[in-house]
């Protein structure tokens, strides 16, 4: 369990998500793959904040310096905001998909090609 392992895991999850975004036909499946990519980024952010030693701690390893908590938790705050934005994106994306289904009768992304013709 090292930072390298977490980075590799994050890379694998992100690539799998990218494959899903590029190849799925169903728009909801595309949205699911995007959520996978979001969680890969979250893993990377939290792992960095856990392993990267902040400079506030590095000054004196015996005691916790002032402002250390703030630096240690920055990655977790980032992940929290990413989760917020991902939730908003999921709600809006599904609303758009349902609106498209109402007007076109399908959620197949290859069939939604009004601007192509």
């Amino acid at each position: 369990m090292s930072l390298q392992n977490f980075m590799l895991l994050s890379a694998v999850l992100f690539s799998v998500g990218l494959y899903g975004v590029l190849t799925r036909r169903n728009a909801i499946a595309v949205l699911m793959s995007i959520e996978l990519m979001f969680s890969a980024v979250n893993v990377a952010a939290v792992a960095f904040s856990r392993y990267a030693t902040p400079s506030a701690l590095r000054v004196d390893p015996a005691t916790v310096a002032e402002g250390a908590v703030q630096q240690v938790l920055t990655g977790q705050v980032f992940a929290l905001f990413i989760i917020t934005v991902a939730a908003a994106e999921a709600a809006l994306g599904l609303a758009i998909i349902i609106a498209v289904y109402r007007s076109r009768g399908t959620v197949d992304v290859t069939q939604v090609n009004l601007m192509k013709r």
Partner: protein
Amino acid sequence: MAQTVLFWALAVAAVASAVAVVTMRNILRAAVMLAVSFLAVAGLFVLLNADFLAVVQVLIYVGAVSVLLVFAVLLTGDAQAGSASNRLRVPGAMLSVLLLAALGAVALRTDWALLEGVAPGTFALVQEVLTETPQQLADLLLSNWSLPFEVASVLLLAAIVGALVLVRERHP
């Protein structure tokens, strides 16, 4: 030692269910697999001393987003038709493998030891600092990150109103 075993179990579970999400034809099963993947990632957050984030991940992703996705599948009625892949399967796979190779090379070749603490004992010290993550996160969110915090609430409000407007039935 136990942590290492747990890490590999959770990592394998996360990746395997993620692969299942992008390859399964039945979209309802893919949604369930997505929830499994989110649960595994929540376990990884616990391993990284991010207990509050783990709870948030379970509540929002497993509890809300997955259920929302299942609802959308039921509303659009394409669950039986499945989710076949389009013509981009081979180029998409090639692009993903290329990206994985690039990211993997960076992860393998970077000297992470430089980041992991120049002074000895700092890794354990980080664990000592993270005693009460919810309180510490709340302090940070309402002081240092208060502007993004407020902007996020406006974003959520806009998302709620936008989703309502988009799915509202129009009666002419």
